[in-house]
């Protein structure tokens, strides 16, 4: 079986009048189907560049990216992207926001899974509401459903919780991770929050400062009784992982 996503020796640089800025330097990694990985690294380390590469907004200068064994480009609809803010449009109802992607692809929302998802994720009663009537967590769920409506294989989460206050962030993080698990999606979360990375994902990739290389790949496993992200945060293993990742990151900056 092909991995969901494979990076082979990928490099990318930005070009400005003042010179060339290498953002990503010979990166290779694979993500298995159904896996939830996180990428942590110092700010400006090229995490967002990586995301843009995966969803085809930019193309690598060298190396290959393949999705499900196929070279990137032929199947961008397999990628779903969640941005830092929810960007629900105030001039549309929640339902109309959620069907935005379907509308663009001229698909019938009735034949999609959005009604089921709205029901499952407690937004059924708010389909005709304006986004401003929703709480922060509900807004993120709506944004996730908007992304999932196109049935992507891989979800890219680009610090989607960074605009939320701390308490909401803890709740929503767990929520979103559960939904992604429930829908059997492969997910890549970019974050600068180490705790979030540990409590939500199965593997953490630690990136170096610019130009980004992979410093470490740490598998995260918790005993079976730790089900929620809060359980995980309270377990002893959590502290070990935290220390491990912290050391990798601080090593870097020295």
């Amino acid at each position, binding site marked *: 079986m092909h991995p969901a996503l494979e990076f082979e020796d990928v490099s990318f640089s930005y070009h400005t009048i003042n010179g060339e800025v290498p953002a990503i330097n010979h990166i290779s990694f694979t993500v298995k189907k159904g896996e939830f990985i996180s990428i942590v690294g110092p700010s400006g380390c090229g995490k967002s560049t990586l995301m843009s590469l995966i969803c085809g907004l930019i193309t690598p200068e060298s190396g290959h990216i393949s999705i499900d064994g196929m070279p990137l480009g032929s199947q961008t609809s397999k990628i779903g992207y969640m941005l830092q803010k929810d*960007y629900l449009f105030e001039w549309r109802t929640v339902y109309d926001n959620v069907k935005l*992607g379907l509308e663009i692809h001229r698909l019938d929302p009735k034949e999609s899974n959005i009604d089921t998802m709205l029901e499952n994720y407690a937004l059924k009663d708010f389909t005709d509401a304006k986004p401003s009537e929703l709480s922060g967590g509900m807004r993120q769920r709506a944004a996730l459903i908007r*992304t999932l409506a196109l049935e992507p294989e891989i979800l890219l989460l680009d610090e989607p919780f960074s605009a939320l206050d701390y308490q909401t962030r803890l709740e929503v993080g767990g929520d979103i991770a559960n939904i992604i698990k429930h829908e059997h999606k492969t997910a890549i979360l970019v974050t600068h929050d180490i705790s979030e990375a540990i409590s939500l994902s199965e593997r953490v990739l630690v990136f170096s400062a610019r130009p980004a290389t992979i410093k470490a790949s740490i598998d995260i496993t918790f005993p079976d009784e730790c089900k929620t992200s809060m359980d995980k945060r309270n377990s002893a293993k959590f502290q070990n992982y935290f220390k491990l990742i912290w050391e990798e990151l601080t090593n870097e900056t020295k």
Partner: protein
Amino acid sequence: MKQSNISERQLEYINSIKRRKIIIFIARILIFAAFMGLWEAAARTSAINDFIFSSPSRMLDSLITLAGDGSLFIHIGVTLAETILSFIITTVLGITIALVLWAFTGFARVIDVYLVILNSLPKTALAPVLIVWLGNNPKTIVITAISVAVFGSIITLYTGFNSMDPDKIKLITTLGGSRRHILTKVLLPGSLPLIVSNMKVNIGLCLVGVIIGEFLAADKGLGYLIIYSSQVFKMDYVMLSIFVLCIIAMGLYQIINYLEKRLCVENN
């Protein structure tokens, strides 16, 4: 619905807001009445020469005369028609050209210096040229009005379109949308408040343009009435025309204001 739940403090607060509104309304009326009253009194006591400065009662007499023979309504109708026509053309042109500039960035970079020049140019300077080119007719007046308003409109809208959050564009792109989708799903609906507020500016400027045009090239319209009456020293007609213009300006502005409230309640 929750009438019974309203506390005394809340009631007090609501009443104080209502009272304030009434006071503001009365104060506005009083200022108008005082202005008119002083003017009339000054004219009657010969503190000012009412042949030159006119007076409310003389304006009223003129109103009766001009309304009586129907000519006032013709002048108002012509000015209004020209203003509304030039406003519609300005708004459509403004939006269209701003969208074209947004879609073709390279073209926009080339052309924007000319837009800035045309926008800062006092358009009154163009009016005589337009009359020579296009003749003494309503077409000239409409084009003068458009030239007064359209360049500023293009610049405002284009700047607004370009300041759209790039992440909203990213959202559409990552959902598989093209530039057409960015235009129809984000740019136009998101710019509605900007477009309406720009319409407010346009309607005012078009009225200015129409009056300038009528000063120079008309035999009907309030601008013509003002310039003609001042030349034959009928200051009562001049003042009456200005008064009518005030009402027209306020009316047109209020119509757009109403439109804005209707649209932007939906939007926000």
